[in-house]
Structures are given as C-alpha cells and as structure tokens.
C-alpha cells in the first residue's frame, strides 16, 4: 500500500506523505527558498520544517487527511502546493 519513501531529488524539498490517502505531505527540510517537492509538484516557498503542504486542491469545508485519517477540515479553500496549518484548517 503506502509508499512512504521520500526522494531527495536535487533542488526539490524533502517531503513525506505518511499514507497513500493523504492530501497533505510534511516537509522535512529547511530549504525554504525551494518551490518544488521531489514528485515535481510546485509548492509555495517558505513552508517551515515539519509543516504541511497541500498535495491537491482542498475545497472549503473538505477533509484534510494525514496518516490516512481526517485531522481537520479546511476553513478556507486551499490551493495545491499551499501551506496547510492553523490559518486554513481546524
């Protein structure tokens, strides 16, 4: 099932999708100026270590899934590649 292997491709941020159902991934490095993750997905710059990024668009009110479970819901529409945290989920 889940392939949790993160790839350390050059010039891309290290990130980990904990479960195949997840719509967020956790960033695992401090390359804040870098704007892509290893899968090629473009992400916002400046997302800190340990914080989450949206792997797809998440509509307002929709489930935010990490570890394969619902950890919260979007309190505003979240773009693909956007920082996901207390400002847009609860």
């Amino acid at each position, binding site marked *: 099932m889940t392939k949790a292997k*993160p790839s350390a491709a050059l010039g891309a941020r*290290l990130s980990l999708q904990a479960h195949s159902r997840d719509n967020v991934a956790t960033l*695992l490095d401090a390359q804040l100026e870098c704007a892509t993750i290893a899968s090629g997905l473009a992400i916002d710059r400046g997302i800190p270590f340990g914080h989450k990024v949206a792997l797809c668009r998440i509509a307002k009110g929709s489930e935010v899934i990490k*570890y394969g479970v*619902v*950890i919260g819901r979007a309190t505003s529409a979240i773009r693909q590649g956007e920082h996901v945290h207390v400002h847009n989920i*609860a």
Partner: protein
Amino acid sequence: MYMSTISHDVPIGSGWRRSDGRVGLRNHVIAFSTVALTDRITSLAAARVKGVLPICPAFQRGLRGADAALQANMIKAVIAHPNVGAALIVTHDRAAAETLEADCLELGKPIIVLSLIAQAGMQSAQDAMVAHLQALKAEIAESPKTALHFSDLTVALECGGSDATSALAANPAIGRFVDRLIAAGGTAIVSETAEFLGGEAVIRAQSQSEAIAQDILGYLCIEEQMMRSDGTNYRGVNPTAENIEAGLSTLTEKTMGAFCKIGSNRFAGALPFGERPPVAGLHFMHTPFFSPTSLTGMVLGGAQISLFAMGVYNPSGMPLAPTVKICGNPKTLSNWPDGIDLDVSEIITGGSDYDDAANTILKLIGEIAGGKDTRAEEWREGQIIIPISQLPL
C-alpha cells in the same frame, strides 16, 4: 478477515514455551521481592549470582480496595510472565509466604518462596537466597527452546520523548510492523489513555465493533474527568503553542503522531491495567502516560517485548521484557548511540521507507529472541511501577 492471513505465521526465532502455552523470549531467573521491606536484601543476594534479574518494585502494605487487588494481581503476573523461567520469591512474614506458595502451585516452573522472618540474621538470610538462586539457575540452564511464531508474540507499543521525527519515522515504522504482526495472528497492546484524547473518530473507525469502541471511549472519558477534576482542560490547551510552531495544526494530528503505532489495524479489545488480552489482535490498555508505568501494564499483560519509539532520548524500559528503542532523530542518534537499538532516520532523509523499517524490526526481534541483548538490557534499565490511586492505610 484477519484469520485468512494466518498463513504468514512463520517462525521468526526461538523461545521457551511455558506450561500455559505462552512463549518466553527470555528464560530469566528472577529474585523477586514482593514487599519493600525485603527489597534491599533481595537485591544484595541477586547481585551475587551472575545473570539473575532482581525485581524489587517497592511494593507496599496497607493498600486499599482496588489498589490492593491490583498489586496482588501484578505480583502473580510477574511470576507467571513467559519471560520468567524460574523465581525466588521473597516476602517478609510466613503468612504472606504461604499465600504466595498457594498462588504458584500451578505455574509449572521452578519457584522457591522465602519468608525473611523465618530466617535468622541478615548474612545468613542472604546466603540462603544466594543458594536458592544458584539452584534455580542450574535447574533451568538446559531448558530446551522451541520455535517462536508471530502468533506467539505479544508486543507492547510505546513512545517517549516524542518529537516531529517520532510522528514521521519511528511511530509509523512500528505501525507497519504491527500490520504484519496482527495479520499473522499476533497480538499488540497500545496504552497511555491521555494520548488518545483527540483520536475518538479514529477509535470508532478502527475498532472491530461498536462495543469495543465504546469500551475504549469509556476509558478516555474517565481520563478526561480526572483531568477536569484537577482543573485541566486538555482539549483547550492542545495542540500547544510549541506544537503549532512545530507544524501541528489540530489535536487529532498531534494524537495521530503517536496513534499511528497501531498501523491500519482494528482494536480487538480494551483492557484494564496489566490485564492479559483474551484474544489475539490489537488491544488498547488503560494506563497512565509515564512510560515505565505504561510499559509495566503492557508487559504484565503478557507482552514479551516492547517497541519503543523515541524522538529525544528516554532511558526507560521494563526489566522483564526486552525494550527495543527505535529513533529517527539524527541528533539523538548521534548523542545516544549506546542507548538506541534501531536507527530509522533514513526514512526522513530519503534512504529507506516504512517497509524497510518493518523488515528490520522483524529481523531484530528474531535476534533478540536468539539472545541478543537490547540496549536497555545492557544498561539494566527499567522499572516496575503500578498505578496506585488512593493513600494506603
């Protein structure tokens, strides 16, 4: 649905099969002091016989109600534990010794009960204990081992010193191993009730029945009432400002960081402290969050080994069962190399994944069953602590 995968119940090592059918990963001779009065003399005697494991948990007299029953049951659970091959049981008075002797009649392992008051003199009493320990050690030295299967294993799942790496490396790696263990007919216990607050929806979704979910949620309710009576509002202060700065957005996300140790399995039952799971599968146990206490509950509930996820270093363990310290934090790994059994930091840096880690855990358990000491065993780490709820008489 879980029974269909029993075919994966392959031998993973060897152990000692006890008369109750359980298999020990260790064949300890224990010097067990059942009351604090005899702790010192018992530990002095144990230190004189190589390989003897002293168990001196400062047990009290004057416990009341449920506390008294719990302590009495936990004494029996120590002696009956599958990792115990033989036991010298020390108590103070003759009446207590008679009760203990009666309790041990059907355990089918070499046991000697000694009443301190029936001895004469500190040195002579200690010498008598040493002689008994040497005899017990000789008696079980040649005990044959049998194959150890997945289905023989009860594994305690623990975490301590948790940080961002535990939630992404050590805990999910344990979860992946537990997926295999449960699929092959094995048993796992996860505890620390306070850490489950915020995971209610997951408990409902990952229980085999509504009744089991309600049993677990009932324990959460007891825990939260206890917090409230102390004026603590756990949900109101979690995730903490520090958690939020570290990237955790919701209480459920924080809870899942520890909860992911259970993998994708469903709970087969909810247990009170130190109780043995009646069926195979994943079990919840109601324990305090302090790791030596929660490990005591799970090991006395029959776990022969524990998997302990760490972020920052945590030295605890439970002396009766090997504790496998698993860490994904590069700084902790570099500072505490002699205290950690398994490095899973490559999950974070990209060199490996959860399946690799699960394979390594399996291999390590086989080696430990084969006699390899865990770091906690090397350092003789660990305590037995039972949760006492009322002032003794």
